[in-house]
């Protein structure tokens, strides 16, 4: 199916769902569910919290859908709702960053490229120390591959702000990795 045909079909589904068609919304939810889960799982670093966030975002999306002005922006809108649901889940679990059950990392099927760069646990620890908003912008950029304009749409910020927030998130992540690597470096770790 061509992209334009898919976009038209999606628009029709969104408009039907805006008119109260739950079946149409169900199709939209099924086709977006995996991506939403991927986003939430990466932001929250917890499968259970991510499931809760996705469920919450879908219910809110259904409830608020008539208020979406432009059906073509459904995905950005849905992702915004999800990011906010992730923030809510993060707040709900106050001890989340320090006392969260470890996300099972299945690992990519290919040889772990990350292992050539840095210890995966170090990255996990560093990423968990980032506040949720910094995790979100990194996930939108590195997982979804969104540019600054699209990130701005999802987070409701101008592209320039997206740029600076992304910069600070990278900087924070780098600092955390470096801090974690210092003892390892002293012991012959991979980051130097």
């Amino acid at each position, binding site marked *: 199916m061509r992209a334009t045909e898919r976009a038209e079909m999606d628009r029709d589904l969104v408009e039907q769902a*805006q008119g*109260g068609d*739950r079946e149409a*919304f*169900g199709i939209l*939810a*099924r086709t977006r*569910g*995996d*991506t*939403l*889960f*991927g986003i939430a*799982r*990466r932001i929250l670093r917890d499968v259970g919290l991510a*499931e809760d966030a*996705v*469920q919450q975002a*879908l*219910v809110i999306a*259904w*409830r*608020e*859908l*008539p*208020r*979406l*002005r*432009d059906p073509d*922006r459904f995905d*950005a*809108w849905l992702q915004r709702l999800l990011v906010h649901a992730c923030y809510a889940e993060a707040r709900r679990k106050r001890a989340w960053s320090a006392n969260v059950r470890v996300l099972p990392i*299945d690992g*990519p099927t290919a040889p772990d*490229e*990350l292992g050539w*760069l*840095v210890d*995966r646990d170090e*990255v*996990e620890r560093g*990423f968990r120390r980032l506040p949720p908003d910094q995790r979100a912008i*990194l*996930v939108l950029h*590195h*997982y979804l591959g969104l540019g600054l304009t699209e990130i*701005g*749409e999802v987070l*409701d*910020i*101008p592209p320039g702000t997206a740029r600076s927030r992304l910069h600070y998130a*990278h900087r924070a*992540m*780098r600092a955390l*990795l*470096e801090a974690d690597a210092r003892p390892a470096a002293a012991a012959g770790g991979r980051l130097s």
Partner: protein
Amino acid sequence: MNRTTDAERILDVFLAPEADRLPDRVLEAALAEIARTPQRRALRVPWRFTGMPVLSRATAVAAVVVAAVAVGGALYLIGPGPGPGRPTQAPTPSPSPSVSADLLDVSTWTAFTSSRYGFSAKYPPTFEAVPSLQSWRMPDTPGNMFDGFSSAGAVRWLDGVSALLPVGTTQADWYDEYRRDIVEDENPWEPETCFTPREDWESTTVDGVAADLRVACGAMEAFVFVEDRVYVFAAFGYDSVQPPTDEPGVSDEVRGLFELWLTTITLDPAAAVDPAPIPSPTST
């Protein structure tokens, strides 16, 4: 090795797409809850995508505040807060020579002509035009029926619509229906306390035509009847899903900009394009 590149490369790999799969039970649980969840009514102020192509948000806020002060002058600074029953103050844009902001000179605003509703207006450089996508109808379920102007500043939204009055409908009838639509709907748009009685409304003019001015909760509306057409112009100081309070009243910024905006409006009912009437079953 470049450390920035390192961090980004690490994140590229760390956050790389994998075979993420949302468990069916989660999706089914969501859909089960959705089956019990009613949809909310469309909000007139639509979900907004940020678009501030000219000035920053901070500049926008400052500019709107300056406009409000210029328009309202000392009235806003020393007078009582706005509210129902307040005497109408004819908006008189008179830029202070000490203020250089382009905002105060409406000639620097961008012209907009509605292709649907039979009016023209101007909007400040810090706003973005958001044309309607379909014609207004009551009850106003879709949120994309308004020719609007969106801002990330203190005043979030200005808009205008118009519609033909149904044959035989008086202004009083129309107001009654509008009120029912706003506050008595199954999913009301405003709390009932936000819709003040008609006798508390103010008077103003739009393009030389008498208009009624209603102060709602964080928003204002002006109603203009020209021939067989009703125009509704509005300003909203919020973009959340509900009014911020259930008490009528607007900030000085909302009132100031709204009154200034109304001075830019030109009515042209002959240019309005109305949707085709729905054929009656007996006409086919």
